Each structure stands twice: as C-alpha cells, then as structure tokens.
C-alpha cells in the first residue's frame, strides 16, 4: 500500500500532505508543477481552528486541451483539510479532439476530515473533459465532496455546447467499493445534451460521509425533502393529455431540483443530487447546507465574500 501511494506521488502533478504538527493540521508537503499550482495560505481559518486550507489553481485559470493534471493528497489521522479553487475551472475548447483530464487520489486517515469544495467546472464549446477522483477512507474517516459543473458560459449563450464531460468519483472503504459514481454527458447526433438537460444549466453532487457529519446530513435531508415536496404535485386533469400547451423553456419546472440518498450499509454516507437553472442558486444552496462545516474548517464554504 505504501509503495503504491509513493508511486502515485512520484508521477503526480501535485502532491499534498496534511499531518498533525504540534496538535494542529499542517501542510507538511505541498508540491506542484505546471500547469498546477497549490497554495496553502495560513490565514483562511482562525488560528484556534487547526484546519489546513489549500487552493488548487491552474495557470491561465483553466485547463487546456490535452492537459493532464493529477494530484495525490494524504490527510493524516485526526487531521482536517479543505481543498478549494479560486474560481470556476474553465475547460477550453478541444484541439484535435484531445481530452483534458484531472485526476485526484486522496487518502483520508482515521478520524480525519477532507472537504473538497471547489467552484464548478465550466466547459467551453467543443471542450472534452475527463475527471476521476478516488478517495481511500477508513470507517471513521469524514469526507465532503462537492463535484459540479455548468452548461458553459451560458449567460453569453454557450449552453451545453461541449463535446464530452465525464466525472468519476470512487470512495473505497478499506479496499471495498463504497460509492462508485460516474456521470457522462456526450454530444450525440440523436439527442443533444441541451435537450436532455431541459433548460437547466448546473449539475451538482454533494457527498457527505462520516460520523462527524451526521447532523449536517440529517439536516440537509430534512430541508431538501421539505423544499421539494411543495414543488411536486400530481398533474391535474386540466393539465393532462387533453390540453396542448406550448412547450415551455421549463418555466413550470422547479428552478432547482435536489434529492438526497443515503448510501453505505450503515447509512454513514449521503449523496445529494442537484440540477439548477442558475449557478448562483447552487452557491446559495451549498452555502446554506454546508454552513455547519465552519466549526470544523474555521471558515464557511462558498461564503459570499
């Protein structure tokens, strides 16, 4: 296991290690080479908190066709680390159909907490993007994963114009697959991505795992259920098959759809799936539901500052 981790680190574009130093989580290794930059500012969380914050930045603010960025992260036992970005990750147009790729392999120690709370990925027209994140955890590890993407620079009319987007998230609990997720959106002649996405511009997934996050999970499940149940109602007979309405650009569909599902044999994990018309509404959603992480991270994720 140690040999494999070392091999991954040797080949990586970025290496990050967070370990306990004098009782506080500290970044003990922070290496990155072009096109990745890792910054670990010390002023994000108050000194009392003891959580390490790391920003992953790409030169030029985006990922160019053919770039491959791999990151190896280790969060030591009982440590707390938050990894985020400075702004949304832009994936530029594909050149010669080359795919851009980001790979993350993280090991989260016992009683540790890793929060991966980036801004969304925005793929430009014709872009091809592949992302794989693998998390190795223990039964009492804690994990927050926010993985989300937009339809493009949709305010300028670039909506679902990318060619290929695939995101894979694997959580491995002591060598057993606990959470295996893969989402693929590929442009095809038969059904465009835009048609499939029906006027929505943002797709987000939030994973919460571990004993420390139980109360956040429970609260999110309750609130999402309350929020959605008022928006779902059986079609009335007037709205049934006897009425012909002009096809809406989804003005009648809820502007934000969210659903939560527990996972794992002991229900220690929860995944929320969100689709929304605006990125701002998802920032709002994340800010609200992840606010309680401030007590662990020292700062609230996605705070509007």
């Amino acid at each position: 296991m140690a040999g494999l981790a070392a091999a991954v680190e040797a080949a990586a574009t970025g290496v990050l290690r967070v370990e306990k130093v004098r009782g506080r989580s500290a970044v003990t290794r922070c290496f990155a080479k072009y096109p990745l930059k890792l910054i670990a500012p010390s002023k994000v969380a108050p000194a009392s908190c003891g959580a390490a914050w790391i920003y992953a930045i790409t030169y030029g603010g985006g990922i160019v066709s053919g770039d491959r960025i791999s990151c190896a992260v280790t969060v030591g036992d009982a440590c707390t680390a938050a990894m985020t970005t400075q702004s949304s990750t832009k994936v530029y147009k594909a050149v010669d159909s080359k795919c851009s790729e980001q790979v993350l392999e993280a090991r989260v120690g016992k009683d540790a907490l890793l929060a991966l709370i980036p801004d969304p990925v925005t793929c430009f027209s014709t872009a091809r993007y592949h992302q794989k994140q693998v998390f190795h955890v223990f039964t009492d590890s804690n994990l927050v994963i926010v993985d989300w993407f937009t339809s493009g620079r949709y305010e300028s009319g670039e909506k679902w114009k990318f060619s290929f987007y695939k995101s894979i998230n694997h959580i491995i609990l002591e060598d057993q697959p606990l959470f295996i997720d893969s989402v693929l959106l590929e442009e095809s002649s038969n059904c465009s991505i835009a048609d499939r996405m029906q006027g929505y511009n943002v797709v987000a997934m939030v994973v919460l795992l571990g004993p420390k996050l139980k109360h956040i999970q429970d609260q999110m499940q309750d609130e999402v259920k309350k929020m959605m149940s008022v928006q779902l109602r059986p079609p009335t007979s007037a709205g049934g098959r006897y009425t012909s309405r002009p096809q809406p650009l989804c003005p009648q569909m809820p502007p934000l759809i969210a659903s939560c599902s527990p996972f794992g044999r002991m229900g220690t994990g929860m995944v929320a799936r969100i689709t929304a018309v605006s990125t701002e509404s998802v920032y709002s959603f994340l800010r609200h539901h992840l606010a309680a992480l401030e007590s662990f991270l020292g700062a609230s994720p996605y705070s509007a500052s």
Partner: protein
Amino acid sequence: MECDYPASKKNKLTHPMDIDCTVKEEATDAGSTNQHFHWSQWQLLDSILPTGGFAHSYGLEAGMQSRMVNRPEDLGPFVVQVLENTGSLLLPFVYCASKSPDAATWVKLDQLLEATLTNEVSRKASMSQGSALLRVAASVFTEIQTLQDLRQTFLGSKNLSFHHAPIFGLICGLVGFDHETTQRAYMFITMRDVISAATRLNLIGPLAASVLQHQVAADAERMLQKWRDRGVEAATQTAPLLDALQGCHAYMFSRLFCS
C-alpha cells in the same frame, strides 16, 4: 448434436435409408429443444411474470409531478433517455452476469452495483425487483440445478442485495439466451415497464402507447448496440436530470408507484 452428424453418416454408408432416418431424428431433437427454449424466453419477457415490475415508473411519476413530462409527446424522449441510461449504467452488469453465471461473479457484481446505485429510490427498486425475479425463476425453472443451488446458498445472506440487473443476466444466461438477446431483453422489459407506467399514470392511452413502443424500438436497438458487451468498470450514468428527479420520488405526497 451437429458434431455427431458427419460421424453417423460415415458409419451408416451401407444403409442409406438409415442415414436419412437418423439424421431426421437428430434434427427433430435439436428442433424440439430450440422450440422448448422459445417458450421459456417468451415467459421471461412477458409482463404477466410476477416480478413486481408494474410497481415502478423509472422516474416517470417524478418527471410528471415536476412538469418535465406533461403531454403524450413528451413520453417518447423520456423513454429514450431512460433506455440510454439503462444501457450505459446497467447493461454491463447484465452482460457480465450472463457471461459468467456463477456464484463468485454474481456476488462481486451485486456488491459493485450496490455501490453504484447511489440513488436510493432506484437502488431499492432494483433490490425488490431482483429478489422477486429470482424467487419466480427458481420456482419456475426447477430443471436448472445451478439456479436452485444459487438461490439456496444465498437465501437470507447479508452479503447480497439481490439487485435486478445481475440476476436478470444470470437467469438468462442459465436458461440459454445468447448475450445479445439477454441485453436486448433487459432493454425490452425496461421500455415495456416505463410505457406501461405511463398508461397507468394517464399520460397516454393504451393504443397510443403501443404505437409509441413500436416507434421507440429503433432507438432502443441503437442504444443496445451502443452500450452492449462492456465491462462493469465502464458503467456510467448519462441522465443526471432524471437521476436527481427520480431521487425525489419519496418526497411526493401522493404517488402511485414505488419508484
């Protein structure tokens, strides 16, 4: 049976009449086995098989209550999306189970699918349909010893969730379907069940539903050819909006279906 044919011809060269009779008898045996197989195949695909498929709408009910699907014209594209996602996410599990219908493969596939079906609504639907299908198949196909043994071994096991796709592939493999037919059959029963749910949700009448089913068949075949014969490491979902919506199923105050 075909291998025996040239040998028997050699042995009976001196008795031409006997050759004809022997060949004919063998052909009849091969024919009757084939014909017998058709009855099993049709029974497995018939909606009358009590596997509880009628309790699931594959996200259609949530789609209607969120106004994604409003009119009969919206059903076709919805069914196509469901079929695409079935192909991309579940067909690999059907295929791999039908290729190796044994205990070790089944357990691995079931556990992997348990981790892959992250949507609780579809996960529970898969478990309930899978266990119902296994119970029915074991009761019906008493002549398939492997099936009986597998069911006996794993009844009450905590290690297995009895997910639908691997069990479907397993049973089809043991009954004698070829891999392509098995995967096509899985797409067929999915299409059948969504369209059936649409009629019960009063979205479309039974006649129009039958017309639609025939029209969508071409798309279903295209999807089959696109997603067939893949390993489970390639399994991926391709309908994130549908996934988010189907996950809302339990939030609906009044609902007809389980999923």
